């Protein structure tokens, strides 16, 4: 078992990205991530979740001020994908938001992204301040 873990650890790939808080840059980044991840249902769901959290970081965290960055650190191997997404905003009460019920048909036009992320990832939480998100998902082929 130890050998298997060592092997997986060796294969760990790390990527670092800094995006400006611009709608088009944020959305075009989806294709970059999609190409990096292995072809699996878990990857698709992780890519979707990561996009939602990056949009939230740019929109709610950085208030779409282009000069403010969204900083993304991605780690992956054959067993899992993990990401940290940091913005330069004031943070938010993420624990409160996650307590709200997931109601896909709710009235609001917005606000589903964070709930979809919680549903799609194996682990999902923020730092205390709420301006750095952690996402983790096991890969099942």
């Amino acid at each position, binding site marked *: 078992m130890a050998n298997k873990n060592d092997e997986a650890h060796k294969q760990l790939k790390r990527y670092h990205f800094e995006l400006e808080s611009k709608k088009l840059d944020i959305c075009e980044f989806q294709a970059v991530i999609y190409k990096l991840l292995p072809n699996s249902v878990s990857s698709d769901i992780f890519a979707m979740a990561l996009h939602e959290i990056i949009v939230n970081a740019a929109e709610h965290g950085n208030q779409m001020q282009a000069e403010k960055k969204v900083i993304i650190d991605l780690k992956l191997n054959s067993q899992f994908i993990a990401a940290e997404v940091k913005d330069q905003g004031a943070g938010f009460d993420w624990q409160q938001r996650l307590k709200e019920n997931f109601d896909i*048909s709710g009235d609001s036009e917005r606000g589903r*992204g964070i709930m979809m992320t919680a549903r799609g990832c194996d682990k999902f939480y923020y730092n205390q301040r709420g301006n750095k998100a952690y996402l983790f998902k096991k890969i099942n082929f």
Partner: protein
Amino acid sequence: MESRTNIVDSDEVVISPVGNIDFSNSQDLKDQLLELFEQDYQKVVMDFSEVESIDSSGLGKLLLFHKKLKEKEGTLVIRNVESDYIKNMFEMIHLNKVIEIED
């Protein structure tokens, strides 16, 4: 965002968006759907055969439009979902319980 609109008859219209529906262009889709809403179609079909991905921002527009149509006894139907990415997402959130998705 690019999309085509085919009028079937005075009650039904098919709208076919192309590419990604996301945070960068979902407002365009909303405007297009509201235009159809004002034209009083009872059935609006969204053909997804050329849609590659959709995010929660796009989904929010669909759900809002679905709700508005339902209020005047109209229906929204999603058809021809080809992308596995979109299929996985719709399945994860059980969208079929809210909006009719044709196989």
